[in-house]
């Protein structure tokens, strides 16, 4: 049984990046056909857009289509109605995480994004070792350890070829300023949300 939220489409049109253009979609399939991961997606952008219109809110926010986009922009440049497909998918992904949808918050992409953001916001830089460690251990201690061990040869290879350094993590010079900038950004976002 699917439940329909009849206000979902309107909410997406008004709150999602590029959502105002979604009403132009004519279901031609260029986006899903152009997508390098189109065959791996559960729905693909075209069908997902139709589901937004139908009001299938839960299914849309639980979809893996949101997380499989690799931002290649093929769909954006080819869409005959100029719907910015990539932006819509990413923004729907954000909406799914904010709504606390388990399929979204527990997805590999969301875990990685959180690890990335922690490093970027706290250190001002993304340190590969910290980002990967946070990502692995977000799955729990034992699974994280297993994942880290499985990738150890890759890490050693990277160190050997000087693609990854050993020693203190990279950090920006003035973390205090970064904190102020991020606080201001959060303030602006909160204002826009109202």
């Amino acid at each position, binding site marked *: 049984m699917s439940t329909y939220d009849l206000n979902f489409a309107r909410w997406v049109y008004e709150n999602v990046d590029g959502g105002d253009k979604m009403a132009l979609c004519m279901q031609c399939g260029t986006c899903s056909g152009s997508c390098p991961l189109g065959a791996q997606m559960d729905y*693909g952008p075209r069908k997902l857009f139709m589901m937004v219109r139908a009001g299938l809110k839960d299914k849309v926010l639980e979809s893996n289509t949101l997380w499989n986009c690799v931002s290649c922009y093929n769909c954006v440049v080819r869409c005959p*109605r*100029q719907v910015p497909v990539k932006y819509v998918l990413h923004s729907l992904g954000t909406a799914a995480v904010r709504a606390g949808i388990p399929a979204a918050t527990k997805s590999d992409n969301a875990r990685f994004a959180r690890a990335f953001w922690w490093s970027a916001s706290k250190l001002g830089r993304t340190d590969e070792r910290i980002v990967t460690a946070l990502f692995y251990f977000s799955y729990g201690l034992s699974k994280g350890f297993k994942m880290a061990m499985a990738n150890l040869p890759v890490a050693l290879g990277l160190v050997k070829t000087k693609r990854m350094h050993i020693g203190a993590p990279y950090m920006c010079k003035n973390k205090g300023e970064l904190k102020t900038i991020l606080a201001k950004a959060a303030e602006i976002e909160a204002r826009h949300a109202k």
Partner: protein
Amino acid sequence: MTDKTSRSRTILVVGGGISGITAAVEAAEAGHDVVLIEKTPTLGGRVARMNRYFPKLCHPTCGLEINYQRIKKSSRIKVFTMSSVAAVKGGPGGYTVTVKTQPRYVKPSCTACGDCAAAATSEVANHHNYGMDKVKSAHLPHTMAFPMRYVIDGSVVGTPEGAAIQAACKIGAVDLDEKESSFELEVGAVVWATGWRPYPASNLTMYRYDDLPDVITNVEMERLASPDGPTGGKIVRPSDHAAPKTVALIQCAGSRDLNHLPYCSRVCCLASLKHAAYVREQMADAQVDIYYIDLRAHDKLESFVQRLKRDPQVGFVKSKPARIEPSGAGGGAVVCGENTLTREVYAKNYDLVVLATGMQPSVIEGDMPAMDKDLDAYGFIFPEGEAISAGVASGPLDVSMSVQSATAAALKAIRVASV
């Protein structure tokens, strides 16, 4: 305003395709003098370049023959080929039009015997076949040319070949000294029947028309199927001249696309269904797939759609292909996209791929500055404006609708020229 008594009641028709011819004969038969000018060496336009056309799938020779007869029987129509409008002054009821004529290098006394072509040695791209093959530098534009007169390409002027061509003409009809000339006309009304051109398939980079020989356009398909086309009417794929076993027809190649032509070109769906019929008539074992967003079979031709839908060897795939890729070996091309009914992402190999490119107006903004105020956002002429348009100059139309539009235009022109 000009003095009523001295005003010309003559009507100028610009463009000698099916619409221009119709507007000219309708106005002339209603008692007006008509000047019909055409940019190319012959009347007939795009219709002459079709194999067959709706509604009854006749060969264009038939419809053109009837209309050529009407022109010949009327003493009121003057036809100028190789001529185009250089400038327009005045307004409804009193226009002064400057017409520019390019040299044909063949005088009206030509009997179309073909001696000049026999003497010609060099070849030029065949305009009639959209450049798919070549013709001699001295040639008849096509078998249904009007006037039935040869034309000589400017490239041979002043060469030994030119001298040989001139010497070959027994009646002295070749005149290589002809120059571009112009003349002025006083007319009461102007009918713009400037027609269309196919949207350039090269612009659709994802369909790789330029580098895959077996990806062709719908107008080229018409020529392939035509008895007077580059292959004598045999549908073959260009890479190896083999009969295709699988053919993909791709709709909306450039139409209904904000990156190309934002509008629906209206005729392509039925044109492609017609192409499916051509292939099925020639090759009993061929499979044809039509890729479409929506089938928009305009006009009263639903029965034709149903006839093809009953054919098990004609497939209908609801999908706008995302891209076309080279086939591994042996020619052809791979069509890739998403079937929107099954959600299947496909990559299917075809021997021949035909792009249903849309219609673009021939006269576009800037070509004719005096006209710009009468053009809509897509370059078609406003029906409500001052300029009188006939056929595809006013928007995408098929042949029968163009003829209706031309008759309406003739009536409008008569009203303007009679005041």
